């Protein structure tokens, strides 16, 4: 019998990992910590939160950075430490894990929808194969009006993870969160 997956297997694996954790309250706590540059997304939804461990009043949080020069990493470390202080955790160590490298495939479905609502097109809103490199013909569904009649303005948007597009239908410019 052929099984038709309704959920992306990578996301399924992440969810299972989280469900099996001994520290569900810590994962839930970090749902309040958002990416400082995209406040619509939590660390979990953007897919950079890999693991949480606790020993008494100390915790370690493993994070995989999005882009290597991402200036948000320092702010994220501080925000996590502050969030955990409320749970009585005095010392939080942030472990940066480079391998395997972060990919937009780790972003949750909820995260993708939130991104779109926030005005940023999620990586899978590219018309056609979203894993192909962008070019001047690339079209992305406009997060404002849904039109596919859009054009690429620049492959690099307001942050390293985004590209800049303009919608020919509603004339708004918008960011695309690039597939990586």
């Amino acid at each position, binding site marked *: 019998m052929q099984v038709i997956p309704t959920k992306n297997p990578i996301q399924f694996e992440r969810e299972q990992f989280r469900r099996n954790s001994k520290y569900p309250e810590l994962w839930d706590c970090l749902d309040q910590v958002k990416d400082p540059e995209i406040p619509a997304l939590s660390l979990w939804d953007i897919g950079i939160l890999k693991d949480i461990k606790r020993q008494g009043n100390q915790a370690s949080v493993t994070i995989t*950075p999005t*882009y*290597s*020069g*991402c*200036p948000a990493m320092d702010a994220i470390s501080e925000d996590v430490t502050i969030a955990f202080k409320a749970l009585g955790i005095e010392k939080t160590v942030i472990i940066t894990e*480079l*391998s*395997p*490298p*972060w990919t937009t495939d780790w972003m949750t479905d909820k995260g993708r929808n939130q991104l779109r609502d926030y005005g940023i097109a999620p990586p899978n809103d590219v018309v056609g194969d979203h894993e192909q*490199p962008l070019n001047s013909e690339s079209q992305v569904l406009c997060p404002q009006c849904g039109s596919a009649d859009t054009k690429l*303005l*620049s*492959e*690099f*948007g*307001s*942050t*390293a993870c985004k590209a*800049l597009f303009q919608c020919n239908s509603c004339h708004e410019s918008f960011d695309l969160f*690039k597939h*990586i």
Partner: protein
Amino acid sequence: MTSSTETVSTQDIIDYATRLGDDAIVIGHRLSEWVSKAPFIEEDVAIGNVSLDFLGHARMYYTYAAEVSNKQNGTDDVTEDTFAYLRDERQFQNHLLHELHKGDFAYTTARQLLVDVYNKYFLEQLEKSNDATLAAIAMKASKESKYHCRRSKDWTLRLGDGTSESHERMQVALNDIWGYTHELFELDELEQRLVDAGVAVDCTTLKADWLKEVTAIIEEATLTVPDQDWAVRGGRQGYHTEHLGHLLTEMQFVHRSFPGAKW
């Protein structure tokens, strides 16, 4: 890269990671000089992002060098900043190509094309290093370098196949820069030892692919691959052009004036 049972000296690893960090920070800083001066605002943002990517690569290499260094010497006070801010010109071992001045936009574009295509092939090989940390850094950086290559190619085509002025400037830039590319494909004793141990990239093997790809782009841009027999080398030994000292002066000023400053 082949695996080897030879033991690798930790000092060699520190030096190699530092060199790769030097390449990244120097080109990253150079690109940042364009911020607010690029041809138009989208490009201003793009060049800032590419600069930031290189800065990120430098941080990963330096952080690794610091980790190994602390472990080797039983210290805990060496950090990425030690490498970035507290070394002088002669201690930097970046390739000279990376430090050349920013020049006009054609000059920056020509240099960036040569650097980005080199990086793409270099990182592909470093991913196979049997040093797990270097391989992980390469995997991370490699994804970004593909975006960099496309941007450099687009600009090369746009300027080379643009107006007679932009074409002329691109050709002059390529001619001025070409002699600095040779050292990218050379190994010194340190790197040879690490190549033998399966840690470093044998960059002598990258030249054919690199030359093929940049030649195709240069010719598509109606430009000519320089046919010159001059070469400048010495970056990996700490012998630099006049440009590096000025760059470091600006980059290190705050840290040296206010040691340990944080914000």
